[in-house]
C-alpha cells in the first residue's frame, strides 16, 4: 500500500514539475487574449492558481509557499494596487478615474497595450492571491 501511494505521489510530483510552467504560461495566455477572445484576468488567475494548488498537493503547502516566495495575501495587495494604479494613471492626465489609456503602437506578441489590460493583470494577481490564500489555509488545517 505504502509503495503505491509513494508511486502516485512520485508521478504527481514529476508531472507537476513539467506541468507547472506550462500551466502558468497558459494562464498568462488566457489573461492576455481575454481582451479579444474568451478569457481574461479572472479565468487566467484561476488557471494559475490551479497550477500552484497542484504544486502544493504534490510537494506540500510549505514547499509551495517557498516556491511562490511572496505570501499570497501580499499578492492580493499587489494585485489591488495594480488595478487601482491603472485607474489612477488617467487621473494624472486630468481624465476621470479608470479611463483607458492606450499605447499608440501595437507591440509584438501583446498587440494593443493599455491601462485596461493592466487592470486585468491586477485582477489576475488578486485571483491568484485569493485562491491560494484560501487553499493553503485550508490545507494547513
Amino acid at each position, binding site marked *: 500500500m505504502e509503495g503505491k501511494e509513494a508511486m502516485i505521489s512520485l508521478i504527481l510530483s514529476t508531472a507537476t514539475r513539467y506541468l507547472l510552467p506550462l500551466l502558468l504560461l497558459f494562464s498568462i495566455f488566457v489573461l492576455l487574449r481575454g481582451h*479579444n*477572445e*474568451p478569457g481574461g484576468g*479572472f479565468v487566467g488567475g484561476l488557471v494559475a492558481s490551479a497550477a500552484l494548488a497542484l504544486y502544493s498537493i504534490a510537494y506540500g503547502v510549505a514547499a509551495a509557499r517557498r516556491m511562490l516566495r511572496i505570501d499570497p495575501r501580499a499578492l492580493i495587495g499587489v494585485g489591488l494596487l495594480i488595478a487601482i494604479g491603472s485607474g489612477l494613471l488617467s487621473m494624472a492626465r486630468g481624465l476621470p478615474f479608470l479611463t483607458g489609456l492606450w499605447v499608440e503602437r501595437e507591440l509584438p506578441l501583446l498587440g494593443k497595450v493599455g491601462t485596461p489590460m493592466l487592470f486585468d493583470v491586477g485582477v489576475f494577481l488578486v485571483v491568484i492571491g*485569493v485562491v491560494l490564500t484560501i487553499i493553503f489555509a485550508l490545507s494547513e488545517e
Partner: protein
Amino acid sequence: MDVVLAIAVGGLYAAGLYMMMRRSIVKLIIGLGLLSHASNLLIFTMGRLIRGRPPLIAPGAEALAEPYADPLPQALILTAIVIGFGVQAFAVVLIKRVYEIVGTDDLDQMKRTDEL
C-alpha cells in the same frame, strides 16, 4: 426556451429556499448555492436568449453584427458569480468553524445570541 428557463429558475429557487429552511448548516450552504445559481440564470434569461452568437467582434469587423447575445447581462453575471464565489467561500469556512466551535450542525442549537 425562455419559458423553460423561467420554470427551471423557479424550481431552483424553490429547492434553494427549501434547503435553507432546514436545520442543518450544510443544507443551508447548499441552499445558498442553489439560490445563487437561480439568480444568475434569472438575470441571464432577463437579458433575453440568443442562441450561439457570443458578443465577440469577428476579426476584420469593426462592430458586433446583429443578432448577438446581449453582453451586458453576461458581464453582470460574471461579476455576480465572482462575488458569489467569494461570499460562498467565506460562508463555507464559516460553517466549518461554527461546527468546530459549537459542536453541532443543527441550527436550532444556535440561538443563544437571540435569547433574552
